[in-house]
C-alpha cells in the first residue's frame, strides 16, 4: 500500500471540506462551518492496480488577510486547488496558491476544481475558460468529484 499526503487549497468558503466529505463519506451538508487548522481524512483506493491510502488534508481557507501557513504543505505529493465558480476572485487566487505550494514541494502535482458548478446558470458555462487538469465540480450534486481525486492520484502515481 502506498501512503500519500494530499492537500486541498483555496480561499475560504470555496467548498474544500464539502469536496472531501463528498469523496470520503459520500455526504453533503449545506451548512457553512469554517474549518480551522487542519483535519485529516483517510481514503483507500485502487488506481491502475495499485493500492493507495490517501491522507487528505483539509486546511483552513485563506482569507484576504491571512494566508495558509506553509508548514502544513511539507511532504505533500499533490494538491487540489479549489475555487468557487460564483466568485471569480477565487479562481484568480489559485495561481498564488499553486506557487506557494510548489515552492515547498517542487516535485508535486496539482489539479484544479472549479467548484459549485450547481450554482451557476448553464448559459454561463460557455464563457468559462477551463484550463487543463481542471474539473467542473459540485460537491452538492456529486459531479466530477471522484474523477478529480482519482486524476490527482493517477498523476502522482509513479
Amino acid at each position, binding site marked *: 500500500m502506498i501512503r500519500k499526503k494530499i492537500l486541498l487549497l483555496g480561499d475560504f468558503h470555496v467548498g474544500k471540506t464539502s469536496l472531501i466529505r463528498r469523496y470520503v463519506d459520500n455526504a453533503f451538508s449545506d451548512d457553512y462551518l469554517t474549518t480551522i*487548522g487542519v483535519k485529516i481524512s483517510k481514503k483507500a483506493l485502487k488506481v491502475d492496480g495499485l493500492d493507495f491510502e490517501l491522507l487528505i488534508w483539509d486546511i483552513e481557507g485563506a482569507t484576504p488577510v491571512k494566508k495558509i501557513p506553509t508548514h502544513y504543505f511539507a511532504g505533500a505529493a499533490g494538491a487540489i486547488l479549489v475555487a468557487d465558480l460564483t466568485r471569480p476572485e477565487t479562481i484568480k487566487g489559485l495561481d498564488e496558491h499553486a506557487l506557494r505550494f510548489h515552492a515547498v514541494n517542487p516535485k508535486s502535482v496539482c489539479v484544479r476544481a472549479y467548484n459549485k458548478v450547481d450554482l451557476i446558470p448553464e448559459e454561463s458555462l460557455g464563457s468559462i475558460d477551463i484550463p487543463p487538469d481542471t474539473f467542473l465540480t459540485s460537491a452538492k450534486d456529486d459531479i466530477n468529484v471522484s474523477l478529480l481525486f482519482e486524476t490527482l492520484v493517477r498523476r502522482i502515481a509513479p
Partner: protein
Amino acid sequence: MKNVQKILNAILSKNVFEYLLVDREYRIVQFSAEIQTFLGKERRLKVGDSVFDLLPELVGSEEKMHKVFDGEKSSFAITTVSKNDRYINLYVDHFDEKNLLILLQDITEITKIRQRALQYSNQTTLLTETLKKIINSQNAMIFLANTENRIEFANQKFLEYFNVDAEEILKKDLGLYREMGPGFRSYEEMHRAISEGMKELSIGEDVFFVEAIHIDPANILFTLSKMTELARQRKELQEEVAYDQLTQVYRKKIFDDKACELLKSDRPFAVGVVDIDNFKQINDRYGHLIGDDVLRSFAKLLRREIDGKGEVARWGGEEFLLLIHTDSEKEAVELCEKIRRRIAAQRFDPVPGLTVSCGVTMRKGDENLESLLARADKALYRAKGEGKNRVVYLPPVE
C-alpha cells in the same frame, strides 16, 4: 519536603499535555494514558504500533523527523490539528539518540472560540463581497457619506463618474457635494434638500434622479440614477397618468404639486373652486351617464377658457379647481365671472339651465396649500350661501 515535591510533580503532570515516545522505526515505545481521548473509542493504542497509524498528520514529515533524530533540527510543530472533535498542537522534539518525543497539547477550548470568531468574520466578508458585487453592478451611483463629509463607501459607477479611487474618498473630503446640483455646503445639506422634495439633481450636463436616506445618525446613503431618454419617456407617461380619465383635466394630486411648487416661489397666483349647482339632482333625474356627459362638457369648457392662463383640475365629484397665473385679484375674478356667464349661457342637453358657483382667492406671501384651499373653499361656500350662480372673492388677509 521531598515528598511534597513529588506530590507537586504528580499534580503538575495532570492534563497539561500528552506525550508519545517513538523509536527510529517510528514505532510507539511509550505513551501517556490520556492520549486515548484523541483517538476515539474504536482504536486502542498499544506499544509497538506505528506512529503514522495513530498520527497520519506526520506522514510526509519523515524527513524532518529524521533530522530531529540526528539532531540536525531541534524540533518542529504542526499546529491546530483536529482529531476526534478535539484540537491539538503536535510538537516533535529530540529526546535522545533512540527516541523522539511527540507532545500533544490540547487547545480545543481556545480554538473553538477562534473558530466561532473566524466563522463570523468569514461570513461577514462574504456578505460584504456579495453586497459590493451587487452594488457595483448597479447602474445608479450609490454612495454612503458621513456627517463629516467623508465618503465611507462608493460603488464602481460613482468612482468612474467622478474619476476618483476608493482609497482617496475615504481619506479626505473631496468636496464633491459642491459639484452636485446648485452646489451644497455639505452632504448633510444635500440630504436636507432632498428630504424637502428635491428629486432631480444636475451635475454638469447630466441630470440625475436623487434619493437620500439616513441609515444611522452618522451616515447618509445617496442614490443618483442618471435620467436617460427612457426615464424622460417614463416621466411623460407619468404626465399622462396625471389626468382624470373622465374629464381629461389634472387630478387633484398634480394640482397640489403645481400649487406647492408655486407656493415655494414668490410668484403670485389665484385659486378658484368651481362647483356645479344642484348637480346631485341632475344625477338623480337623468342618471349617471348624462351626469358624466355634463361633467365632460363642463370640463372641456373650463379647459378652453383657462387655456394658457393656468391649470384646471378635478377635485372630485362636480368640484373643479382653477389655478390662475395672475397678480391681480380683479383679473382672477373676471376670469371666473366669465366662466360662470359662459356656463349659464351654454346649453347642456338635455339638462336645462345649468349654473355654477365659484370661490376665488389670491395666495398669500407665506402660506401652505391647505390654508389656501381652505380660503377658496370658504369663498365657494359663501357663493352657495348667497344663492348660487355667482363668484365670491375672499382676499388673502382678513
